[in-house]
């Protein structure tokens, strides 16, 4: 106790400003008066870095330009959607499909609604590390996969080739695909995005064979540009029956979902969310700031916003 007290009084000697003078965040930063209306703005953070990038860019703009009191809430997809109804979540900024959740929360409960595309295009598919695409150029055609299945054998896949799946956040058709395309492969579940990324990173560094489920936009693509394997092209309806799927995954138009209450509140943050639109490259830049350069999400967002004033301007006009 006494030690701390002494330290305290020592510090008094060199004391500067008292708390009244401390910089209280300026809540009325906008110059058009409208900004004052924005108070609390709750953004759900689904657990992947690309999402975090989009959310913090929107949040950063809302905070600095609109004077919102932004709160980020780390939540898995479904839990975040549950929050629309209770007023705990205003926006899910990057939604990958999730027709079942849309059915429940938009159609049935009416607590949520769509707020347009983020401009990001979601690609899901099978990927190999770049060294493999170079060494075996024809491996990127699914019809040749059986010739290479020996390469992909692991302790987990028995006498078949291993297809590494398993980000639990994504729906996969891979078991059905392997079956319906007569591929000599066994789906093995890595279980987390972290494990998938680590597996690909290791495969590229050591030139080990690996075939796995992956997706874009994803920050890891800028560290190791994985090469996509072409499955039979997607056609409308070819994935209607999950047991009979024999085609590639569709392109996902990543969209924004907002709480109905928030959309009708007239908050300037809603207009920002609706106008928010950027490219996969934009998102990967911010995501790489976070995941590779070790910036905090807010630093990363601030850096990008500073470098791209014209885009931000467009969202606000």
């Amino acid at each position: 106790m006494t030690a701390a007290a002494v330290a305290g009084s020592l510090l008094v000697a060199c004391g500067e400003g008292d708390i009244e003078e401390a910089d209280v965040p300026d809540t009325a930063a906008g110059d058009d008066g409208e900004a004052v209306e924005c108070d609390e703005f709750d953004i759900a953070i689904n657990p992947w870095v690309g999402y975090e990038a989009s959310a913090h860019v929107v949040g950063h703009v809302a905070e600095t330009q609109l004077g919102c009191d932004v709160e980020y809430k780390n939540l898995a997809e479904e839990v975040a959607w549950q929050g629309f109804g209770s007023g705990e979540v205003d926006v899910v900024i990057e939604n990958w499909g999730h027709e079942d959740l849309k059915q429940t929360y938009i159609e049935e409960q009416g607590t949520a609604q769509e707020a347009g595309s983020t401009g990001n295009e979601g690609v899901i598919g099978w990927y190999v590390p770049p060294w493999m695409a170079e060494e075996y150029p024809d491996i990127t055609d699914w019809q040749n996969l059986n010739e290479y299945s020996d390469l992909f054998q692991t302790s987990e896949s028995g006498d078949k080739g291993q297809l590494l799946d398993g980000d639990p956040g994504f729906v996969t058709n891979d078991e059905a695909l392997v079956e319906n395309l007569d591929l000599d492969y066994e789906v093995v579940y890595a279980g987390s995005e972290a494990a998938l990324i680590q597996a690909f990173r290791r495969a590229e560094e050591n030139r080990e064979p690996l075939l796995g489920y992956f997706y874009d936009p994803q920050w890891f693509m800028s560290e190791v540009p994985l090469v996509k394997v072409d499955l039979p092209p997607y056609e409308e309806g070819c994935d209607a029956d999950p047991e009979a799927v024999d085609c590639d995954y569709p392109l996902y138009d990543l969209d924004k979902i907002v709480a109905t209450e928030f959309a009708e509140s007239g908050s300037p943050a809603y207009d920002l969310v609706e106008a928010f639109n950027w490219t996969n490259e934009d998102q990967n830049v911010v995501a790489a700031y976070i995941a590779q350069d070790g910036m905090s999400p807010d630093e990363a967002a601030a850096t990008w916003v500073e470098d791209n004033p014209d885009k931000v301007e467009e969202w606000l006009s």
Partner: protein
Amino acid sequence: MTTTASPPTRTVSPPPAQQRRGLGLRSFGRRGALAVVVVAWLGLWTALRGRATLEIGGAELTGFHEWLDRQRDSLAAQRDTNWLLQYGVGGISDGLNATVDFLRELISEPAFPRPFPEIGYLGVIGVFCLIAYAVAGLRSMLLVLVSLLAFGALGYWELSLDLLIVTLVAVTICVLIGLPLAIVMARSRKVDAVVTPALDLLQTLPSFAYLAPLALFFGIGPAAAVVTTALYAFPPVVRVAAHGIRHVAPTTVEASRSLGSTPWQQLRTVQLPMAKRTIVVGVNQTTMAALSMATIAALINGPGLGQPVAQALQSLDVGAAVVASLGIVIMAVMLDRVTTAASVRGELATRRGDSARLRRTALAVGVVSAGYLVYLSRTFSWAADVPESPDLGTPIADATSDASDWFIDTFRDSTQALKDGFSYGLLNPLQSVLADSPWFVSATALLAIAGIIAGRRAVVSTAICELVILGTGLWNEAMNTLTTTLVAAAFTMLIAIVVGVWMGRGRLVDTVVRPLLDTLQTLPPFVYLVPFVALFAASRFTAIVAAVAFAAPVAIKLVADGIRGVSPTTVEAARSAGSSSWQTITKVQLPMARGSVVLAANQGLLYVFSMVVIGGLVGGGGLGYLVVLGFRQAELFGKGLAAGIAITALAVMLDRIARYAVTRTGRT
């Protein structure tokens, strides 16, 4: 933590009414019978493998899974109309949120319109040091001071305090509900028989399985985090406290009764005071369990240090994850040592003859100083704000990242070979026999084995658990998980006995190894997942290594304490009779420490099972992966919960077989 070694979370008190019938079989006959069963199993496996394995596809749902989904949906639909949900659950949730928010604004979060909490940095340090001194003494105060400074220096001041708040609120709830329950349990066999399985369920049902609905009812916020944490942390305090109260010497209780005490007086004046030490151990273990939920609570936006750990995992940033986890470890050590010290302070002070006047003076000085610091932290921003230097977080993060990279680069090839050898040599064959045999063959074989090694009661337990697993529709996945958990439990015990004996026989070894074990035990397992995947790829082996890393420390400590507890004169006698070290260990020390070894096996098993879900995140597959899947995908919720139930059934099954087997061999 040191206290984990004292009375058990799960007391392996001998199952009542040991039957003697099964003992007709001589040990040799038992071995023979076991051999017959195994040979028959292998024969049927060869002939019938791949048939009737009850394997189901990744997205396939059974009627039971869909039924669970419908239950969730209908509960969700009633959220705003059902009286109980709206006012009961809603009220609890509002109350918890208000409590946590109040505490946060008090010490960790800016209290609007102030840019700082009501009590800032220096004030918090002052108040906490004062509390530590008052309840636990000078040494604890210094520990608290160092810990608090460390939270700031690691760069996680606010999140550390948030974690402390959530933990303390959850533990308070556990104690408020748990102690009365423990008292009732200790006095009534009937209540005990009902509550024990419920506690088993709470301790083994993975929280991932019910996290999403919990957030649905308690909202997204501190309340859901507190409830999740409290649910998991609840069993230890009840179990240990009931154990303590029940084992107060019967003669003492008798004496008080003959003096005419009413049951209430007995409880208040004899049983509770005499069980105080044990009860504190229970509270302490509940606190540790609560801290271990930090990372999981973060998945539903629970405030605290779990958040940076979970986030670092997304970008595979081992360094950042370690720094945040270090905060959790420090918190664990701090709470453990302070609560332990607090429980013995009174006696110790009397025994040492500390001057009460000196203490009163010190307390008065402390109150004044703390008050002054609070005043400063309310008035000046330099006193309210966390100092920016020294920054220990960045160098530690960099150093750990480098160390982890170096380790991975150096050992990658050998670890890969190790994983392959192990998987092809042991794991795959074992899994094939368990999971590729027709379900009725495996089920019957398991029943027969349970009967041979553990008797009739074990057969009944095993049969019930098998029925539950069949009911979940996940038999095949359950057999895969059984394979990895059996192997992990076996390795845990092997390591526990080797290292435990080594520690138990040498003070120096103990001093060096114990802090390492404490750290491993409180480190969130999420942290070593990334390096482990780098070393062993995403595989069942990785899941096993992670489970062993988490379970071994507890088991090692229990074995070590048991070995140390063997009377030195007995050991000396054996030695002077010419026993070699090996003979002393195998013939004297281990048999005499049998109780501790059994307890170690029991705890090791439970810890291994608590890692099934974490294993699912790194390629363990099986039930663990399904539970994670159920949490992340709404339409698979039912399947995930079913997988959680199957995990519980497996854990209970192995636990019962082991327990009955032990009491039985103990009597032969």
